[in-house]
């Protein structure tokens, strides 16, 4: 079983985001990038499957700043093979272009199963998983929170609103959009990641020219207007606690 996990770095939303001078994109100069949380779950799900079935897990990602740390951390968690993809991600890093270019490379890796995050918070042109699946002629199911391999198919748990789960069977090879792994992404000690930096190597593959056709052209980006912003209470915990007590009383819950 050959499992491929395409992942990407996204801006850390804990940081303050700002728009660049063009007014149409995020200012990346100061952005701290972290792994897309759903991709993090996809890696975990792949490692869980490896532990159950002895699958080989390959994690691949775009070669931008921070990718080495991301890949070595994946190796410390159990990934067998690490690949970074070279390309011009500044001007054409949308999912229409990436999916087209990545599908060809992934095909060469002969995947039985591809796991990737169901979405990323900065996907403006849809998530990448369904597009790659289509180019590879594989079935796609997303919002997955559980995967079991059963011979030539996988049995998956697909999430619907209200906590309802649809149990589906999907023929392999297939691509799954992971919402959550069966257990939270495992923690690995920094020392183990450092050890991987010494013992593992990262392969590099060149992406074909990125073709953005079909991706939306952004006229402008902006921060949402805050017309109905909350009435802000004190920043001081003690004062805020007193204010909240009064509010709870007014609302009749205290």
């Amino acid at each position: 079983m050959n499992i491929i996990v395409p992942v990407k770095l996204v801006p850390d939303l804990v940081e303050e985001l700002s728009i660049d001078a063009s007014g149409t994109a995020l200012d990346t100069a100061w952005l701290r990038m972290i792994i897309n949380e759903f991709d993090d779950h996809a890696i975990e799900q792949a490692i869980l499957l490896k532990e159950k079935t002895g699958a080989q897990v390959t994690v691949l990602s775009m070669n931008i700043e921070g990718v080495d740390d991301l890949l070595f951390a994946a190796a410390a968690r159990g990934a067998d093979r690490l690949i970074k993809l070279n390309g011009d991600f500044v001007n054409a890093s949308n999912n229409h272009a990436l999916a087209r270019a990545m599908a060809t490379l992934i095909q060469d890796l002969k995947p039985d199963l591809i796991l990737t995050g169901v979405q990323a918070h900065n996907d403006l042109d849809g998530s990448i998983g369904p597009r790659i699946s289509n180019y590879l002629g594989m079935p796609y199911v997303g919002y997955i929170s559980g995967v079991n391999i059963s011979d030539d198919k996988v049995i998956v748990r697909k999430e619907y609103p209200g906590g309802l789960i649809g149990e589906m069977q999907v023929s392999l090879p297939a691509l799954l959009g992971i919402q959550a792994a069966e257990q939270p992404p495992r923690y690995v000690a920094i020392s183990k990641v450092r050890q991987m930096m010494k013992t593992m190597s990262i392969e590099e593959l060149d992406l074909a020219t990125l073709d953005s056709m079909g991706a939306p052209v952004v006229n402008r980006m902006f921060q949402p207007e805050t017309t109905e912003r909350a009435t802000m209470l004190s920043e001081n915990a003690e004062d805020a606690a007193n204010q909240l007590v009064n509010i709870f009383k007014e609302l009749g819950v205290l």
Partner: protein
Amino acid sequence: MNQDIFVAVEHLRGKVSDISYIMLAAAHDLAQNTGGKVVALLLGLNAQQLAGNLNADQVLYADHSLLTDFNPEAYQRTLIGIIDEYKPRAVLFGHTSIGTDTVGCISAQLGLPLVSSVRTIEANNKLISQICGGKIMAECNLPEPIALITLVPGGYKPEQGQSTQSPPVTAIPVQVLDGLRILLNKYIEPETSDVDISKEPLLIAVGRGIQNQDNISLAEELAQAIGGVVCASRPVVDQGWLPTSRLVGKSGSTVKPKVYLAIGISGAPEHVEAITGSDVIIAINTDSAAPIFNIAKYGTTADLFDLVPALTEKIKNIKG
């Protein structure tokens, strides 16, 4: 090519989802600009009655046993056939477990542009998308030739997409659906629990800001003191710190309490859509730019680790 706006209606186990009505409302805005009709696409088995209150000029209904329940592959194939034949100006999908499973493959297969996470349609068919956890909005033009769009809730009310007059329903032929590689085995009901958070009047909700499992007790102590129930956003449940029955959000419960106290919750759209029915939202978050403050009535950037214990103590003193 015509100027009609199609809506891929979503329904689950015999009930049309709210996002379908929200899409119909948005479709009317688009159709007003293009001068076309609003056409609802309904896929199912013996499901014509679901068309009854759709606010659409027309319903195209595809009936097939393999469309009884949602199946990504069956939906894709059926909708690809319809889009290819009718060539509408735009097709709306929900930014949901159903819509996003369908639209990406259609976009790739037909080579059509896709704009996702659209919240509102503005003048001249400018599409406003909500990305980066609700912190950034992006404006795009309605792309040519056939725009595929996923819609998030928040910009339109479901009632705007409902009508008391039944729209005309046209049955359409369904593509051959044999050889599907995806099959639904069964539904698994949500786990039952001691409490039903969708019915609780006072919810103490914790998010990523709570940092670790031990800190959940801060919320539990507060809930116990004031007489509320603890619930959580996705990251907390994914970590296994609270059971799925306490999950508020897209895949969890939609809640409508009298008071929703959001502790360390940033207010990502998937969470916000499930709490907008609350009477009063109060947010505690050290990030003053957190989107939760845009929907909360009251907010504070005080550190939750100082504020929550202080609040619990005060409430205990009052209640004696």
